[in-house]
């Protein structure tokens, strides 16, 4: 149920990427897909009544094995979020350059190799 909702969010982003004409809307659809994938990976590792995988005061490693949520997807997603920021900067740079070249954000107008 909860995974399906994540997938619906992914498909909304996919709709934005494939069906929108404005290049900023396409970037926003990409961001929505990214959010949904990150959330899905984190939710995959959740354990019922799970605790954060941090060894607190007076806790043993056995307690952590029994109760903590999965730390591996969290480590993946932590880097993934930061890389997403870099990719976004790249996409926005492309969008700004295209705007300077064509004077519009509409991708159906960007059909000339030389303007």
């Amino acid at each position, binding site marked *: 149920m909860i995974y399906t909702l994540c*997938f619906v969010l992914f498909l909304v982003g996919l709709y934005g990427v494939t069906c929108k004409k404005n290049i900023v809307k396409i970037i926003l659809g990409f961001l*929505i897909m990214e959010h949904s994938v990150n959330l899905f990976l*984190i939710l995959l590792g959740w354990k019922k009544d799970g605790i954060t995988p*941090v060894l607190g005061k007076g806790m043993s490693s056995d307690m952590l*094995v029994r109760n903590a949520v999965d730390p591996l997807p969290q480590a993946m997603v932590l880097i993934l979020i930061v890389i997403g920021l870099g990719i976004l900067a790249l996409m926005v740079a492309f969008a700004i350059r295209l705007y300077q070249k064509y004077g519009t954000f509409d991708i159906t107008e960007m059909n000339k190799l030389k303007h």
Partner: protein
Amino acid sequence: MIETLISMLIFFMIIGAIIALETTDLLSAVISIGAIGSVASICYLFVGAPDIASTQLVVEVLTIIILIRATIRHDLITIDGDREFFGLTITLALIFVLFLFGIKAFNNLFDFGNPAISQLPEAPSNRYLACGFQETGANNILSAILFDYRGLDTFGQLCVLFAGIWGAFAIMRVQSRRKKTGKGDGNEDR
């Protein structure tokens, strides 16, 4: 209980996504994306990932700043209307088919709240949780994985990040360098 809460939050995110994609004002679309990221950060807090939540919040602020930089300096020409009707119909049908396949695929996953690490004792995460503190000395297992067990992975991913940022700088810099040297090849942008 937490399942209902997370479901409601994701439902809110879906509504925010639809608003962001369908509104004609680019600035409100960007603000909606900010709302989606903040709700995602709240979700991370509830499922035991406070590190991710704080990172997401910081990155979300930077995302909004970058996107506003992209939209606000230019004239906000509202481009409404989708592609032509035939292509739109085909795309929506394909997305629906993808949705059906996805529902099939999710039946094979472990249930929510009962992940792989509690069913497979030999999963690598169990070893990280059991021996992480003794082997690395970090009491946050997340940093033990990031900087010790999988440090080489982290290095490679940071190389990707560096390449992305460098590419963005290279794309943005071409025009100013041309202006400075005054060299044009008949292809200047204006």
